């Protein structure tokens, strides 16, 4: 089977430093893969390369066998790759509903419509409201996004991502900075998406228990390199990975 997402010796260098160094990976359709690694391993940078926020120094990114290395983030989204951000990244002075509605509008392909009245696109609002209910934000539609609590912003972020209905979801630490009480509801949302079985999900996460219960595959990133890729059970048993996490592993190249 053809991998839905593939990288080939993907490298980015900032001067002499290589946050992502010759990473080659293959993601199969409808799988749930988690990327783990210590802080500074290059996880978010790898996501930025996949989604197009950064351009690689060398190497290639392929989606469904088609090269997308030089496409803009917008074009990649239209091809079916959506991502969430580790740092909360919403439209602060717009209402919560408007935030999601913009994503729904993008998904519907209404890009350039200069003179339609809001009424014509009322169904966008309805869909936005449904999505807000999915992420348990149904009551918050009229609040400004900047007035949401941190955890709520994360949920909003996920609602926007879901609205895009992309085949590939890149989730960058969806529970980062959330209070413990809020985490289960986000996990529930992710579990629901996973159970639908029609999405390919790539997750960066620090919470190990969460990663282990969800993931079909685990990838370990260390100093910009792909250290290991295997099932969660095998990764946990791997001596190399334990060293990377507990210290004692030094990369001679850096």
């Amino acid at each position, binding site marked *: 089977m053809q991998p839905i997402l593939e990288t080939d010796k993907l490298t980015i260098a900032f001067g002499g430093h290589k946050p992502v160094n010759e990473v080659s990976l293959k993601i199969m359709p409808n799988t749930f893969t988690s990327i783990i690694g210590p802080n500074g391993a290059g996880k978010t940078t790898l996501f930025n390369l996949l*989604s197009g*926020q950064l351009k690689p120094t060398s190497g290639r990114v392929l989606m469904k066998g088609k090269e997308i290395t030089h496409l*803009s*983030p*917008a*074009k990649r*989204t*239209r091809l079916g790759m*959506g*991502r969430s*951000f580790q740092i909360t*990244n*919403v*439209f*602060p*002075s*717009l209402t919560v509903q*408007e935030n999601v*509605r*913009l*994503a729904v*509008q*993008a*998904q519907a392909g*209404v*890009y*350039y*419509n*200069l*003179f*339609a*009245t*809001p009424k014509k*696109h009322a169904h966008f609002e309805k869909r936005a409201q449904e999505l807000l209910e999915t992420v348990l934000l149904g009551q918050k539609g009229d609040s400004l996004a900047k007035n949401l609590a941190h955890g709520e912003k994360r949920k909003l972020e996920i609602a*926007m991502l879901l609205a*895009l209905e992309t085949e590939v979801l890149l989730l960058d630490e969806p529970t980062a900075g959330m209070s413990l009480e809020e985490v289960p509801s986000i996990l529930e949302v992710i579990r629901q998406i996973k159970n639908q079985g029609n999405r390919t999900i790539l997750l960066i996460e620090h919470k190990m228990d969460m990663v282990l219960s969800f993931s079909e595959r685990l990838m370990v990133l260390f100093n910009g390199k792909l250290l290991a890729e295997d099932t969660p059970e095998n990764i946990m048993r791997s001596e190399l990975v334990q060293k990377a996490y507990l210290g004692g592993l030094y990369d001679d190249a850096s």
Partner: protein
Amino acid sequence: MKTNWLVSSRLWMGMAAILLIGFPFVSDSRSALILLTQIFIYAVFAMSYDILLGYTGIISFGHAMFFGIGAYTTAIFLHRWDHTMLAFLVSLLVVLVLTGIVSYLIGVMTLRLKSHFYAMLTLAVAGLFLVLAEKWRDLTKGSDGFTFYIPDVLKDRTTLYFASFFFMIIMFFLLKRFTDSPTGKVLQAIRENEQRTESLGYQILHYKIIASVVAGLAAGMSGSMYAITLRFVNTAVFGTNVTLDALLMTIVGGVGTLFGSIVGSALILLVHAGLTDLAKIHWIFERWMIFFGALYILAVMFFPQGVVGMLRQWKEKWKRA
């Protein structure tokens, strides 16, 4: 939703419109009529600037170029061809074509740049137009400018007053429809968070160019109307001052609210007229720029959302209370 007549902005707007329509029949002050006409025209210019600044978050220092293109085109048509309505309407069409082309080209060339580089470049391009107007003497008569006749229909100040008033109202509703459209919503998203808008699948540059063209077209038309009210045009219409006036009007009135631009235009021009009147009392008032400078600083410090922004905030509080 609870509606309260005190805070119903629509009611206030309607009343203001009725007052303005009735004004020429009540007052016989020629200068007041001319002042209001100017307010309407500047309001359109300020609204066009608000599309850039308030809705898309683009700062342009060269918006005067579209105003100037409009003013000169109409002036040249009326002067060279004929001072008839036909010439005026054709000149408006030409203004739309010219400003459309210029704003599109400038957008394509410069909107890829980050904000301050874009601001600098627009300043430079507007400067080029100023030089062009000064040096192309055959057509523009240099920096002295020239007077011209306007169509007979518009000669009556009251007619011109109504023409400008309805021009403003029509532009307000057109631009309002634009900002409420799906595209307009994306512009606001770009203002809020460019990177996020792009990752939703919107191609930022296209939207910025659309904003630039819409703003350019509206500004060009306001320039045409401005030339008609003055019956005179000179290179001042390309001056940076003109852009700064629009900037001041949108900020004082409230960025991101088209209506704020109308309020801002009224406030600035009324204050300007008031201060000029006071010059009889003390010479300092002749230097009204000093007061505008102070007003600018105070507005940015204490009313960053402008008059309309403040009112909206109060309205929200009122509703919640």
